[in-house]
């Protein structure tokens, strides 16, 4: 190589153009993960803001919560829709199940930070242990969500008497059970559509997260990261996993509480 190249690499005070430095003091992978997450924040924000806009275009249910009856005339009260938990058929226990789901996801986020912390210390046993806990948390959350969807789709024994335009473009009045993308017993069609799209898109992210967690868990266990000399992959997957938790915090508030 010519002498000038060498001169740039060695003599420059800052060495910005000489290579070997990290912009923003973060590695390439971490930086790209952050910018990917930023774009993902916009996607989820678009979903949640759409929810807010559509919700505001419908009248709110005005009566007392405990007298709530599902209708497509007004927006439902979430605590009256999400009031079931597994093994207690027909019991009215509002929001408890989704509270448990939130607890599980926050705890799996905590075990993820502990895995990242163990990675900083090159402690393979701790990384494997905490990754396993995180993985279990993720799988449990997904199972809960599957149950929640199943319950939402099948609906309550009583259903709701609704007048709506069916899939054959006919105006019909009939008792509707559960939910699909055309009609649902809880509220306007948009309510179930938004439920499926928002929690579904989040669940899709969790599924991807579980796959990534499993790969990282396996690679940490067989010593891939130890041979590589660092546990940065745990950190990058950790960023993604915390993001999934972050989104759930917002979904929980806007879909289930408000």
């Amino acid at each position, binding site marked *: 190589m010519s002498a000038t190249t060498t001169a740039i690499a060695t003599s420059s005070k800052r060495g910005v153009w000489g290579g070997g430095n990290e912009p*923003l*003091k*973060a590695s390439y992978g971490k*930086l790209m993960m*952050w910018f990917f997450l*930023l774009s993902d*924040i*916009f996607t989820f*924000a*678009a979903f949640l*803001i*759409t929810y*807010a*806009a*559509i*919700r*505001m*275009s*419908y*009248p709110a249910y005005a009566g007392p*919560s405990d007298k709530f009856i599902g209708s497509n005339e007004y927006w439902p*009260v979430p*605590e009256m829709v999400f009031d079931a938990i597994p093994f207690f058929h027909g019991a009215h226990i*509002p*929001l408890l199940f989704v*509270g448990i789901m*939130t*607890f599980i996801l*926050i*705890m799996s*986020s*905590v075990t*993820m*930070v*502990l895995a990242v*912390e163990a990675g*900083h*210390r*090159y*402690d*393979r046993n*701790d990384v494997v242990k905490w990754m396993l806990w995180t993985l279990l948390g993720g799988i449990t959350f997904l199972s809960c969500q599957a149950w929640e969807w199943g319950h939402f789709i099948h609906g309550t024994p009583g259903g709701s008497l609704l007048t709506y335009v069916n899939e054959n473009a006919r105006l019909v009045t009939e008792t509707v059970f559960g939910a699909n993308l055309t009609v649902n017993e809880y509220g306007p069609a948009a309510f179930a559509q938004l439920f499926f799209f928002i929690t579904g898109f989040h669940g899709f992210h969790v599924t991807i997260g579980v796959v990534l967690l499993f790969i990282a868990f396996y690679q940490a266990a067989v010593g891939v990261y*130890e*041979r*590589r*000399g*660092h546990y*940065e992959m745990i950190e990058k997957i*950790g*960023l993604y996993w*915390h*993001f999934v*938790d*972050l989104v759930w*915090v*917002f979904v*929980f*508030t806007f879909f289930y*509480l*408000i």
Partner: protein
Amino acid sequence: MSLQENQTTLEVQPRDNAKIKKIWKIAGILLFVTAIEFVFAFTMPRGILLYSIFIGLTLVKAGYIMMEFMHLKDEAKTLFWSIMIPLIFLVWLIIALMKEGSEIFMLRW
């Protein structure tokens, strides 16, 4: 973090208990805030005040997750702001679509 590419075995460093304790403390805060949200959900009447409290507490939780769990506050300031500043665009989107939603409501009902 220093990259020790050619080293085959890594020396395990001892646990920093203060750091681990801090992680659990933040976990406690997150769960506590969620518990408070539950209490408010069942004791307060629905309305702007309750919704404001919910959104405020959600932002507190989001702050803890991003700053502590994702270590955003420890990143270089340029990275910190290049993540935070674009989020300002969302503020306008929220205002615009909330207004849009209430206009549609006025037209329909």
